[in-house]
């Protein structure tokens, strides 16, 4: 893991998100080490890696939850401020790995909260309730209902978020993130804990979001999901990006296979050659192995 070679496929001229040399250290632990990543307009980029590889930490660095120890994150050629609400204001929205809805608010209210950064009405106008306030509120509600329609939750607008089934909670989180009218959406394991049908539906949703002109960076363990969706996929192992590219590049990379399946035992005779066998192992095994590890997470 010493020499890091990156197979980057640059697709667009002016990237939407430009991450350069981001490093995150917690004391002696380097969770993310010198990661570069670009996301172009309307792209879907996957981010995979074994558990503890630093994917979520990387997300937190992008969204201002953590301030990276080194490196810069640029969005539309502007360096992002290290505050979550300012990052959202700038146009990056996210969902969370472990769903973080406002459990005791209704579905509609959750989405309305998502519109916070796109509305301005403060306390005074809320108390006065002038025509401007009412127009803005009605507008927000209409837009929120549109998003609920889009994600298929319109019928449950008045339900409490916590009473939704799991899959719909995931959808609501996406709707809430979309409410902030982002240019880039970061999805942290959107299909974790979903059954195959729900996962297919989530794929459709992600494509539909991309069709709205929103770029997507997605963390996933479900390889089929990733390779169906993503224009490019980056693999993060122990905080380092070891490879980035299309399906073939990633699937055939020895280091990816090693990271997921482990290295062959040195003591076994002829072990040095067995890597070749491993690398020719069925791709589905890799995918299944990863999917298993997801299940263990839950």
């Amino acid at each position, binding site marked *: 893991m010493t020499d890091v070679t990156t197979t980057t496929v640059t697709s667009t001229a002016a990237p939407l998100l430009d991450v350069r040399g981001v490093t995150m250290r917690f004391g002696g632990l380097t969770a993310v080490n010198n990661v570069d990543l670009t996301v172009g307009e309307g792209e879907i980029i996957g981010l995979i890696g074994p558990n503890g590889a630093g994917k979520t930490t990387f997300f937190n660095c992008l969204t201002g939850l953590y301030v990276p120890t080194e490196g810069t994150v640029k969005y539309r050629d502007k360096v992002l401020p290290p505050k979550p609400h300012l990052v959202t204001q700038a146009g990056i929205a996210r969902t969370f790995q472990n769903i973080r809805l*406002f459990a*005791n*608010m209704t579905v509609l209210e959750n989405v309305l909260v998502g519109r916070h950064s796109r509305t301005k009405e403060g306390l005074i106008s*809320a108390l006065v309730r002038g025509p401007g306030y009412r127009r803005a509120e009605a507008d927000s509600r209409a837009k929120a209902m549109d998003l609920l329609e889009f994600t298929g939750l319109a019928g449950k607008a008045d339900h409490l978020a916590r009473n939704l089934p799991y899959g719909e909670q995931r959808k609501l989180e996406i709707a*809430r993130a979309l409410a*902030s009218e982002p240019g880039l959406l970061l999805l942290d394991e959107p299909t974790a804990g979903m059954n195959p049908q729900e996962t297919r539906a989530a794929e459709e949703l992600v494509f539909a979001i991309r069709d709205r002109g929103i770029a997507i960076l997605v963390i996933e363990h479900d390889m089929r999901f990733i390779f169906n969706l993503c224009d490019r996929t980056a693999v993060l192992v122990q905080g380092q990006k070891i490879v980035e590219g299309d399906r073939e590049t990633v699937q055939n990379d020895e280091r990816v296979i090693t990271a997921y399946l482990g290295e062959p035992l040195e003591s076994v005779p002829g072990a040095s050659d067995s890597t070749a066998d491993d690398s020719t192992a069925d791709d589905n095994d890799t995918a299944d192995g990863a999917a298993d590890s997801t299940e263990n997470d839950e």
Partner: protein
Amino acid sequence: MTTTSPTLALLRRQAAGTLARLEGSAPAPVARALVAGGAVLTIASAFLSWTWTADFPGDLTVSGYPGGLQWLTVATGLLLLLQTLAAYDLPVLRALAPTGHTAPLRRLALAAFATTWFTLAAIAIELGGLANLTTGGFIAGLAVLPALYGALALPADHRPAKAPAATSPWIERLWVTLITAAGLLLFTYGIDTSYGELFEGYLIAAGFSAAAYLKSGLFERGAALLQRQRPFAMTAAFVAAALFPLTQNNDHDANVGVNILIFATVALGLNIVVGLTGLLDLGYVAFLGVGAYTAALVSGSPFSPFHNAQVPFWAAALIGAGVSIVFGVLIGAPTLRLRGDYLAIVTIGFGEIFHITVQNLDGTSGPKITNGPNGIPQIPDISIFGLNLGTAHQLGSITIGRFANYFFLMLIVTLIVVAVFSRAGNSRIGRAWIAIREDETAAEAMGINGFRTKLTAFALGAALAGLAGTVSAHVTYNVVPDPYVFAGSTPPNSAFLLAAVVLGGMGTVSGPLLGASLLYLIPEKLSFLQNYQLLAFGVALILLMRFRPEGIIANRRRKLEFHADDADAVEIPEQGSGPDNVNLSKAGA
């Protein structure tokens, strides 16, 4: 429940065992008949004399007419009788028990039993022995037993509530009016109780009956009704509140009313901070103090160093609220960066700093501003549009005393605070507060500036408390540092305020109003308990939190949880009926 002491566990097992043995020990029709007969007997027994002498307050010596505590027995007996008739499936009364008859019947029977036996026990203990009870007293004690046994022997019949039939809005408004009127009656009766025993009996009767209606599902139904007719219900509640001083013939009760309103207003302000934004502020009463001291300083009191700078009340109110905002921001800016327990600890500290500071600004330890522990006395009465609130006025044949004047002023302030609370709470900024309460990290990821939003909540809460403080300074004539501490035996102090919010129901408007009324009246009426007051109070709080942790008035968000049950329910022909109002109406009071 795992940490319950062995004794308590044993008691629980025995109680559960007894209940299980009793349940079904008589056939259901017999049991029901026993309850009905017991209820009639109980009512009748209240018309006998219960004791020989007039030494026991309320004069229970008259046969043929109930008096004092006997009225409570009559009331609980009537409620029990109505509920029993409902259990006989009579056409209109049927709607009294949307979620089953047995549970409310048991509690109402307990209410009648507890009220009656409490009265008898009080007579026996106070006058020294059972010999003080007449035959009528013993009959009353026995008459309630068949009802209690019958209710316990009835089989459990809990069922999910059915959706109420749609009624015209005017009939709904009629119900709202009735609920509010009953609420006013209940509230007025509580305040008017002239001796401790009567208030205790009232609490027992009201407590058990409230539990019964909570169990019967009427409470939920009434709350939904009030929610549907919200503007009308609010108006009715304020009309009822405005009528309150007119129903009183002595100014002391109006004084109690003013103090309840002040306490309730401050509790509503705290509800923004605690209930909506989820910031545990344990030093909140300091803002009430800031408002009160500010108003006192500019009131023209000769003991104020600024007595030459007397300003009219409306200006004093604005200054008081403004100064409170300044203090709110000053205290909030450094502390709101903390979360959870840390914030609570730091706010206690700031509350104490206020208390100690005003004690030391006495001319020796610091500059002479607040006169230290002596406070600022002789605060003149407010004069609005040439109307001096300090003197009694005549309205037709009704005399409106000093405290009644202040009651009306405070009612306007409360109206403002309620409007501010509900408008702010139901807006973009209010949603941001609730989002922060639910999950601060997620809220910030949604573009909410956590610190600034929390500071807004803190400052608004402070402003509302400061506003109430300016009135309170004038009502009490003087301002001293003592009430503005973390905990004490009388409201308002931070602990009581927090208790009022939590007890009443966090995040609601009516919750803190009800919580504040209860928490003000209990120490006021039970003053004879003296040193045991806080102990009794603590026990009462623990019991309430054990049996209704979400507060007396549950948040509308909690009501939504019941919504799912109603959706697939069959329709019920009758709409809610009479006596349910009695306890529901507390919300309107």
